[in-house]
């Protein structure tokens, strides 16, 4: 089954959520001390493509992040990954079910 791409999810503080800069390299996942099963880059895609159900399905993971910023240290694109995770938590609190 394919998911129809829709408008990006509204993260409220749009300027703060900088998923567009992500270039899908995977450095973040490689350096995560928890080895979170869902990659930030994939989450970001879900947001950009308005895939709300896919984001909701990752609620556990999104809340298990330590916000340690280890990923941010290694991101060559300078994505504010942990800030994005916080915005995602906010969205889940508003829109999650």
């Amino acid at each position: 089954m394919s998911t129809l791409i829709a408008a990006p999810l509204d993260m409220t503080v749009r300027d703060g959520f900088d998923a567009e800069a992500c270039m899908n390299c995977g450095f973040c996942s490689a350096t995560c001390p928890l080895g979170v099963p869902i990659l930030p880059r994939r989450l970001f895609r879900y947001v950009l493509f308005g895939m709300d159900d896919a984001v909701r399905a990752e609620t556990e993971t999104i809340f298990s992040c330590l916000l340690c910023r280890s990923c941010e240290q290694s991101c060559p694109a300078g994505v504010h990954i942990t800030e994005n995770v916080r915005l995602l938590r906010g969205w889940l609190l508003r829109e999650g079910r």
Partner: protein
Amino acid sequence: MSGRNEARTEPRIAVYVCQCGGNIGDYVDTNQVVHAVKDLPGVVVARHAMFTCSDSNQQEMIDDVAREHLDGFVVACCSPKLHTFTFRGVAERAGVNPYRVAQVNIREQCSWTHTDDPTGATSKAMKLVTAGVERARLMKPLHPIEVPTTPRVAVVGGGVAGMRAAIALADVGLEVHLIEKEPELGGHVGKLGAMYPHGTVGTELVHRMLEEIDRRPGIEVHTGAVVSAKSGTFGNYRIAIESVGLRTEVTVGQIVVATGFDSYEPATGEFGYGSPRVVTLPEFRRLLDEAEGPIVRDGRPVRSIAYIYCVGSRCGDRTYCSRYCCSAAVHASLLAAERDPSVRQYHLYRDLRTYGRNEVMFGESRKRGSYYLRFADDDPPLVSIDGERIRLTVHDLLTAGAELALEPDLVVLVTGMVPRANDELIGALKLPVGRDGFLNEIHPKLRPVETVVDGVLIAGACQAPKSSAESVTSGLAAAAQAAAVLRRGVASLDPQVAIVDSGACDGCGECIGSCPFGAIEMTGTGGTVVATIAAAGCKGCGACTPTCPRNAIDLQGYTDAQVRATIAGLLAGRAT
């Protein structure tokens, strides 16, 4: 000095055997080779050297000439492809005729091929060097053939590459015939609005170039015209220009071909092509260039666009990358975002090749509502059209291969470049065509604008997909190459050509068909007709020499006598 040397019967020859560091010396005993040839008739100097091509050895060779009154050299070293010109240069500086240098290859042909058998390699080297000495003994001084050239250039194709070449050629004082098939100059760029990378407007760029051309009386523009025939030899070609049934003949020194490309035309049904809401990149550019605000297509506002990359490129027979299209499509998406900042754009690509500074556009586009989805080479997106609705499905490698769907208002097929169908011109100029259908240069890096057809140069996108700036650069390169030849006024051609002994020739004409370059013709009056070979047309291939039943043709530098002496030398060469 050469006058004195030419008078002697037995020439004085020096033999230098190179060790090429260990490349030759580790396998071939160069000392033994020197011994094998040092007493041969004509040899007055024989020695080996660590590197014969080194500056110090070159100076020793020059000193030897002065001391020993040498007439020629035999240099036993690497392939003549590498150092013919090096050693001819040494000869010239020493006052020896450069065509009296024989290079014998004992590296590729002895040491490198027989690493397992040093004795055999050495014995083979002895024979080869002996043969070289025998050949050198018969070497005559030769002098480059000087042909006066015509200071005029034909530029075929009036796109940006051809126009820029014409302007540059006129600026160095050469006359130019700029020949364009269409009623107007300009090519593809003449139809474009803002272009990457600097936003230059294509129509304005062409307009400025037209003004520059107008300002130069040395450029004669022929529009609606093609080149239908070519004859003559290097530096002086005669071409026929045909325009609406009118045929003009002009003599030119060089020809620059800048006939550009065609855009790939998808088949009906290919990614939904044929639907009014599926367009090619050139069609999309026209929509953009005409739109002031948001784009409207098929009566509806376009709020979302999907691009499919690599259409017609990197697939099937067309294995090449069209190079310009990634950048042109990303640039087009920036133009679309300018017209309507809220438009959502999805780029379905295989590899994004916004090379060099074009990468900046790619980054910029992502900040302005462009999303990039990557599909696998063997898994292109599917387009289905159901009445009003267009649906694309794609496995996006950047979303872990998830199957995603899109329902855009417009689909843009990012179509590549294909070679122009130009059979008439290719036939008339005998242009070399590569496997991809584009015209072929001699070497993409070392001789990028020359073709195997002497005096015929290529520039712009007729050679391979190129951006506008790259096409202009290659137009300038072709102009520089043509000017380098023609500004001298005379061309120096290799004198190692075939000549006919008119006393021995009985005019049978057997040789005519053997020349692949059509350089032989029968001339003469009053019953005595003999073959004559145009020195400027002969490439020195030697194909005609064995066809003459009377042995009247000889190839300078490789005469029958020299070939026989070489064989005798090979057979006589002392082996250990």
